């Protein structure tokens, strides 16, 4: 038995809101599901919202980082939003920096940041 984490698509972005307590199998399914959706096309950004997630251990930390790095290879930006203060403190003490992700305070800022990141990419290409 396992939970299911929904993936919501808005325009060209995929938005995922993590549950308060996510099991490993659900997290792994989310990872493969997200990357498949990106591969299917027309996705330019991923937003992972951790607002209600009350714990990130080394497994989840690695998974979030892997999602971001895999997405980057597929030319998609990843923003992580809403990390709780206690989770941030614990992550730093564990030495987990969520490599490859760009942080934003909340979903609204996160969407804006994604748009900025996409724009700056085109600036570079010009």
């Amino acid at each position, binding site marked *: 038995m*396992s939970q299911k984490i929904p993936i919501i698509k808005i325009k060209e972005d995929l938005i995922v809101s993590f549950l308060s307590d996510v*099991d*490993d199998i659900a997290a792994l399914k989310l990872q493969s599901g997200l990357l498949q959706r990106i591969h299917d096309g027309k996705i330019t950004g991923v937003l992972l919202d951790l607002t209600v997630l*009350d714990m990130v251990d080394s497994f989840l930390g690695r998974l979030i980082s892997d999602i971001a790095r895999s997405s980057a290879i597929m030319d998609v930006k990843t923003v992580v939003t809403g990390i709780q203060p206690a989770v941030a*403190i614990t992550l730093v003490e564990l*030495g987990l920096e969520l490599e490859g992700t760009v942080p934003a305070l909340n979903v609204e800022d996160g969407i804006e940041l994604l748009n900025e990141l996409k724009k700056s990419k085109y600036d570079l290409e010009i």
Partner: protein
Amino acid sequence: MRRQEILQNIQIENNMDLVKARQAVRIIALDLDYGIVNQTKLVTAVSELTRNVLMYAGKGEITIELIETDTKKGLRITVTDKGPGIPDVDLAITDGFSTGKGLGKGLSGTKKLMDDFSIQTEVGKGTEVVIIKWMDSNK
């Protein structure tokens, strides 16, 4: 130790037991008025240790105890399994070392988050990890 009382035993056998273990620790820590940061550290530590049991031993057990000395009160959590054991403990608790799929932060990270961490292991027999987090911990 002036007082020690078993609050809960949890059997670890599958993926959802990991979620159960985290929730049990969260509820107990909340009941005891641990601060949010220490609650999170306890839950994270238990998650790391439980996952190790599932990954390497397949099954095991968690015992959560309330302990009290003359000066302080805290939670002692014992995670045991009858798995393969750890051949080189010093190496296993080194930051960045991993034989599994993790980042090698599991045991070393758990140690950093707790006030006390001890591990006993024998190859072919199993492993026992005991962690303590005091209620007024500033670590």
